[in-house]
């Protein structure tokens, strides 16, 4: 089975099937990343479409100097960052959801597939996902991206550093800060 890098090179040479295979392999991860970064299902879909468009357009200049996924997440992060900047109302950080929207459940939480678990556990996990989604949205974008890429998408600190264009130490600090802020935010939810 061809590697991602080989597929990208084939696509660069004109193979549509190669791009279709890349899409099949990675579209869920791209949508998941866009969702975690934007917190909005409609924005996530729009951003994910934009990400694949950018990947396709970048093919003529693609060089396999790094893992394809590292490059893909670099494209994805820039796309979501540009989306957030385009929609911000002021300040460096873009509020994702207001408290009211989060509590009203305007954006449905995606529940896990049916299984034989306790329904109460399923509801609890859904509520947990909602709270985390809200708390994630309040992190500064750079911290959110570092934490999501490492904890959510499994990139190493080194890979995250490449995606974000910062040092490994900066990634380490951002991820720790993100944890601090999430713990603080989630504990406020409990005591409120």
């Amino acid at each position, binding site marked *: 089975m*061809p590697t991602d890098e080989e597929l990208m090179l*084939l696509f660069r040479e004109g*193979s*549509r*099937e190669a791009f279709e*295979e890349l*899409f099949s*392999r990675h*579209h*869920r991860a791209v*949508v*998941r990343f866009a*969702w*975690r970064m934007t917190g909005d299902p409609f924005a996530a*879909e729009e951003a*994910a*479409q934009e990400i*694949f*468009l950018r990947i*396709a357009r970048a093919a003529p200049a693609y060089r396999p100097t790094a893992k394809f996924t590292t490059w893909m997440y670099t494209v994805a992060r820039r796309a979501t960052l540009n989306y957030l900047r385009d929609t911000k109302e002021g300040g*460096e*950080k873009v509020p994702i959801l207001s408290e009211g929207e989060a509590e009203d459940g305007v954006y449905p939480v*995606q*529940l*896990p*597939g049916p299984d034989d678990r306790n329904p109460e*556990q399923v509801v609890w*996990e859904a509520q*947990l*996902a909602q709270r*985390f*989604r809200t708390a*994630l949205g*309040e992190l*500064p974008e*750079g*911290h959110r991206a570092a*934490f999501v890429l*490492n*904890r959510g998408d499994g990139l*190493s*600190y080194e890979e995250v550093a490449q995606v974000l264009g910062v040092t490994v130490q*900066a990634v*380490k*600090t*951002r*991820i*720790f*800060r993100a944890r*601090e*802020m*999430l*713990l*603080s*935010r*989630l*504990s*406020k939810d*409990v*005591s409120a």
Partner: protein
Amino acid sequence: MGCRDIFETISACVDGEASPEEAARVREHLASCERCRVLERQMHAVGAGVRQVRGSVPDRFREAVFARLDAEGALPKRKKVFPTAWRWMAVPLAAAAALGFFLLTSRDAVRGPDSPGPATSRIETSAPPDPSPQGNAVALSTEDREMLALLDILEDPADLDANDDAEGMELLAPGDSADSPNRPRGGRSGA
């Protein structure tokens, strides 16, 4: 060295990114500090919690993406099975094939093996896409669930620093850089 000085290293350990020396230092500290053991579990928990924020692939997402890419000319055209020069042969070829099939079936001839399907793509494809609209939803492990439940009983993170000589947890205001030497210090601020 106060607990505060090792928080960031504990975080890196949780992610498997600490050096052997750092990991040894963390293990030694955790062996004698219950508060930091709790913090370490909470750090694990927030990672597990973020993984629960998954979203789902929208219906007809693939169609929408490829329609847009085709509209913007970002993809090569799909190759035609029959080049234009060969199309004029389609009707007589189809008629000949139908006649041959008729003759074979009318004589009750032994059928050969099934005719080969469409030419296989030279690109080996991965497994079929997950039909679940939820994507690759994974249930929380027992350990993750217990750690996340730990967050629910957390009354005030400031308690973690109650006996620490160093300043309390630092929170960055929006726009502050994590690496800024002039980042604000002090108590917890409203998030």
